[in-house]
């Protein structure tokens, strides 16, 4: 703020967008899902926006599952033999174009990995095709690279590996942030996981397919493609604000961000978790850094809560609860879940349609008031298409077995491992009965009306003293 002599403040920025995903219900991988997801993105072009130039977009991107076959072959070319799928992670890095800054960042990243006992296998420069990209976007175009990180032998659980990668990402990012000289591009990690990879940039939704030749490669396969196209209130290019982030694509606005961040900041000092050592926790903090969009902050907290042991849908229910207070029709078990969680987590409130995935399940949820559109369709050839609009992917009507919409406060999950759709009712029933939240409340919640009479009655004092 001090840097700007006028009234403008970057903290005022807003954005909105179109989101969608195409997924195989049974988890079958194919290049078609990626291509279809890009079609969905292209058909939502009117939901994104252009800056001061028609060929500079506000940001668009796609998240897919790690395309092992493709990466394996690519790494052979780099002279590296990748281990089996699941035994390596991929971080997508945005580097400054200045070579010295870039190498400085790379060295810190390498040292961070080393410190965590993670072996770097290879760096791969992601090929891009900047034809037709506007000059404003190109002026801060980063150098995108993928880095392959081996899973240490002693880690056998996929979630544990994700946690290690999470620590690496936060620790390396913080260190680079605090050490390396900042230029207009900066350093950023778009994704860092062994399950998913993100391709995104300061693009219009029509440019994504062409900008990343990888996405047109038939060997790049995935069971799903999750896409996002952004509409910002400014024309200042920022590649890192494009979505999807690491767990979500968010169409919405967190109205209470400042408060949510304050509450998080004050409580993170006391965080303890069986999933992270004290030292690891220190390397993770702060969970949310400055200069991010509200959507990015939301992604950060979702990631933390998920990797510290709650399921992704459970986390979504904590942060974006249904309107439970005063809802007489709600099942008491569910109500108890919401009330219990509200005793320590305030809603991240505002209109929101969120598509989320951890690479194994993919789903979507809507805010309590249904302020964003979310339409889906299920086909007889086991595909699920979900997007801000219907009709974004041409489908033969004869193949359609269900067309629906996400309702306010409701969730919808495709479990690609189990190969089925889990409905809101089924999903929430399971989550709400994990623990006996109702009994916890009965036992510990303090009700004002149950409290004993006060020691001193001020109502009398009021009379005696005249006020």
């Amino acid at each position: 703020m001090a840097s700007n002599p006028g009234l403008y403040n970057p903290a005022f920025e807003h954005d909105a967008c179109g989101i969608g995903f195409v997924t195989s219900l049974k988890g079958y991988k194919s290049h078609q899902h990626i291509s279809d997801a890009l079609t969905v993105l292209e058909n939502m072009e009117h939901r994104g926006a252009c800056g001061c130039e028609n060929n500079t977009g506000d940001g668009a991107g796609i998240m897919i599952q790690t395309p092992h076959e493709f990466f394996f072959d690519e790494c052979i070319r780099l002279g590296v033999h990748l281990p089996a799928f699941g035994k390596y992670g991929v971080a997508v890095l945005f580097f400054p174009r200045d070579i010295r800054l870039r190498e400085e960042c790379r060295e810190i990243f390498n040292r961070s990995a080393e410190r965590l006992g993670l072996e770097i296998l290879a760096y791969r420069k992601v090929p891009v095709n900047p034809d037709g990209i506007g000059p404003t976007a190109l002026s801060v175009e980063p150098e995108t690279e993928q880095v392959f990180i081996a899973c240490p032998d002693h880690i056998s659980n996929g979630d544990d590996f994700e946690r290690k990668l999470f620590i690496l990402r936060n620790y390396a990012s913080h260190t680079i942030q605090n050490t390396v000289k900042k230029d207009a591009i900066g350093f950023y990690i778009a994704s860092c996981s062994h399950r998913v990879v993100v391709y995104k940039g300061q693009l219009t939704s029509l440019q994504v397919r062409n900008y990343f030749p990888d996405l047109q490669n038939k060997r790049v396969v995935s069971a799903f493609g999750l896409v996002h196209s952004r509409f910002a209130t400014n024309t200042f290019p920022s590649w890192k604000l494009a979505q999807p982030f690491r767990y979500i694509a968010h169409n919405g606005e967190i109205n209470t961000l400042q408060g949510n961040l304050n509450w998080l900041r004050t409580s993170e000092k006391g965080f303890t978790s069986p999933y992270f050592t004290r030292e690891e926790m220190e390397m993770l903090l702060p969970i949310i850094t400055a200069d991010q969009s509200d959507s990015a902050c939301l992604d950060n907290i979702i990631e933390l809560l998920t990797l510290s042991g709650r399921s992704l849908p459970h986390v979504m229910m904590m942060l974006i609860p249904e309107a439970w207070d005063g809802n007489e029709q709600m099942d008491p078990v569910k109500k108890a879940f919401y009330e219990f969680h509200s005793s320590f987590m305030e809603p991240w409130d505002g209109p929101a349609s969120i598509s989320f995935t951890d690479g194994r399940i993919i789903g979507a949820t809507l805010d309590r008031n249904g302020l964003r559109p979310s339409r889906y369709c299920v086909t007889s050839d086991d595909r699920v298409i979900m997007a801000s609009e219907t009709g974004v992917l041409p489908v033969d009507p004869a193949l359609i077995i269900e067309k629906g919409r996400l309702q306010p406060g409701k969730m919808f999950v495709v479990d690609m491992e189990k190969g089925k759709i889990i409905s809101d009712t089924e999903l929430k029933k399971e989550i709400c009965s994990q623990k006996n939240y109702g009994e916890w409340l009965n036992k510990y919640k303090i009700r004002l009306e149950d409290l004993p009479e006060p020691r001193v009655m001020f109502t009398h004092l009021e009379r005696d003293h005249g006020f």
Partner: protein
Amino acid sequence: MVFKYQKAFGYSTEDLDTIIAPMALDGKEPIGSMGTDIPLAILSEHPQHLSHYFKQLFAQVTNPPIDPIRERAVMSLATFAGNNGNLLLEDPLTCHSVALKQPVLNNYELEKIRSIDTGLFQSKTLQCYFKADGKPGSLKTAIDRLCRYAVDAVEDGFKVLILQDRAIDSDHASIPSLLSTAAIHHHLIKKGMRGQVGIIVEGGDVWEVHHFACLIAFGATAVNPYLALSTIRDMMESGKLRTHLSEDQLKKNYIKAVNDGLLKVFSKMGISTLQSYQGSQIFEIVGLNKDVVDRYFTGATSRIEGMGLDEIAREALSKHWLAFSRRDIPSSRLPVGGVYQWKQKGEFHLFNPQTIHLLQEATKKNDLQLFKKYSALVNDQTEKAATLRGLFQFKKNRPAVPIDEVEPAESIYKRFATGAMSFGSISWEAHTTLAIAMNRLGAKSNTGEGGEDERRYEKMANGDSMRSAIKQVASARFGVTAMYLAEADELQIKMAQGAKPGEGGQLPGHKVDEWIAKVRHSTPGVGLISPPPHHDIYSIEDLAQLIYDLKNANPKARISVKLVSKAGVGTIAAGVTKAKADVVLIAGYDGGTGASPVSSIRHAGLPWELGLAETHQTLVKNKLRSRVVVQADGQMKTARDIAIAALLGAEEWGIATAALVVQGCIMMRKCHLNTCPAGIATQDEELRKRFSGDPDKVVNFFKLITQDLREIMAELGFRTVNEMIGQVDQLEMRPAIDHWKYKNLDLSAVLYKEPNSLYTGLYCQEEQDHGLEDNLGWKLIEDAKPALDHQAKVTGSYTLKNTDRTTGTLLSYAISKKYGSAGLPDGTIHFKFNGTAGQSFGAFNTKGITLELEGDANDYFGKGLSGARLIIYPPRTASYIPEENSIIGNVALYGATAGEAYIRGMAGERFGVRNSGAKVVVESVGDHGCEYMTGGLVVVLGETGRNFAAGMSGGIAYIYDTRKTFAGNCNTEMVDLDPCDLSDKNELFTLISRHAEFTGSTVAKFILDDLDNQLQHFVKVFPKDYKNALQVSKQGASVHKK
């Protein structure tokens, strides 16, 4: 004792009579009107409440405000006071804290918490006072100590801190509760301890809703307003409240009013729960310095500096010493206030008896000298600063030019507009007088949100015209028909209103006479509600879509978006410009003729100087400035105001209040009561006879102000207005401002000139590309040529994709232009479509058009439907069951005024919101169906979501409720659920038959085959007001017959 405390904490008699008393008596926040023209808190000579430096933020464009009354179901006031525990663990003990149903505690509840001891949970009371010695640093010392005590208390394991300010005496004054709360809140955040403790404020200086809102947003968990409660008791005992209500009931009413007010404050930001609002800091601070803000209100927006801690202490002490007087004779009365209405010895108002008189005389006599005298009185703020612009002066560092070289007045008039005031809120006479005057000048008048009588589209015998050039499109869409849109030169989307940004409005039933009801497509005598949000604008891409829709509905009209000044309005304006608006209007918070809760008039939004400067700077920075016209309005009264607006970046200007004063308004501020003595803001026939305005006076006003403006231009060396726009370096702060309170204001951010790139001008020089050329509509117009030329029947068939948006609207414009609101005969044009329609299928389509779609559609299906027939059913090849699957999106038929729609399948949320005339059959709807509906007919052959019929005051809905779930889903606040009788049966038979015929619906066929039996499953949703109005008119008719 109460009296002494009232003085010490800064109560005025106005606070008692105008704020607290109505809240206790009626349980409601009081209403006011005509905006505010008192000085900003930082400029006021009168001691201010600390919260007056805090302006509420509100939602506009990027997210919707919520209606906390009609959509109460999503709102919550519940909260917990205590330790939040560790977020990363699921530990039963995290819920061991005090559950509160709402945040305002009475004394009894507070004492219970003070005495609490569960073995794990205790509370600690801290005294918030500082030494009343007037020495620098005293307040700072006290706050530092308080923060230390708070940390100690948390470390000692207390779970609730109670911040009490009762312990004051002649040597010790209270720390403003907002300051002590925020200071402790932020100190504990920094120490990582805030989550371990609840903060309850036991504050004497808390009585208005805004005070509560500030406390909660800066960290309080709950509030006990002990002095306000004692004041209520005191007023009752002294007989000031003439009421039979008990003390207990009065206090309950007061707390209810505060709660409702709080819901409104956070719903205007689009926040639905108190828990999320806590600590959200959704305010801009105007008038505190960086040191204070960074330390105690960390992270809140504050851009123009101002008072430090010692000045805050000085202001607090000036109140304190009223109570603990050092003089022998203590003052025996509370200060008068004079904030809500001008009072002798009260707060200063720019429009006061003297300036009103001078302005009216000057415009009556067309006397430039008198006008200059008036202007001088308003402009001269050397002694009494009232506005930010009052602190500016012109630099005059360019050579002056002779006045005859300045562009002629005639070419400047077109830059003026009058404010948006609806026919309904003001009288026919006042409304048309403004229109005639503005048309004579070639300037623009504004319909306001109440529609427009079609008679006004024809020229009058003397050549005058009553047609308003600007047609407003507001959230209620009153009278927004295809014809209305086609008749506009400019379409203005009202995102917010200066007097009450983020809130809806209400036109009481007694103001809705036959005439107004006709223009608004509603029922006489039935009150009308304007929803807080546009239900088709929940985000910036939605606004882009509405702009596209309106451009289709009238490709010749400029599309303007009205925003209210607030921190961040510049970025929103940039987004709006990217969404292809042609004009962005920045309105000040202080304008506004509309009725509005008193706390909203003063505490929400900012002066236009800040919003305009931010907007201009941000647009220049984004290289967007030359694509859009920037207009500003808000209490502009003189040519100097206009010149400053131009230099800050506005090339067009709006004037509302002053134009009403010219018409005879004397600022009684009774607009909301229908008793306006000047015949302006009233529909009462007798009062309207007193209306003394005439177009000449209004014309004179604009001529005088333009003449004066040209003189300023000559003096400053500008030949044209365009040259002036954004030349902010021609302004500077007035030298030698040495007022103790505002001498440290720093307006350099306002006066900052953002460097513009070579390719970006400082005023609008390019046209927006609205992308209409790809619209299917041109093809439809071509194919409909025989129908357009000679009403011949035409048919056609087409394929649609989701990128084909706003289908049929361009064609509808062509019909309206040629055939007026009558449109074409039913069935003239029948177009058949296959595929998925993009947003706004059939929007604003007029009579004579039938659109038949085999496929599905997105949001805003049939928005603003104006007489056309829409038919939609799933593809014949689809194998799913239509009535169990979605076919159209959210917010269908929003603001429809006429026409029919047959929808075979399920609709989304907010179906038929603000429908005032369309007849519709659909097979299921989502939440909030038929909200705010005032007319028309909706038949739902299946289930509805929650909160059906909220705010529904007219029209009828029939629900086919075989599972008997509807009663639980309906909001029956305003409607009765009745069984169907014979006349209903006939109505249903007709509509359902057509539904079956047009869409092939199997549900419809099933019902028709067994109608006598199935009728029992239909519930008739009958609005109570509408029922009464029908009864009254029936009685009226039978009286007439006799």
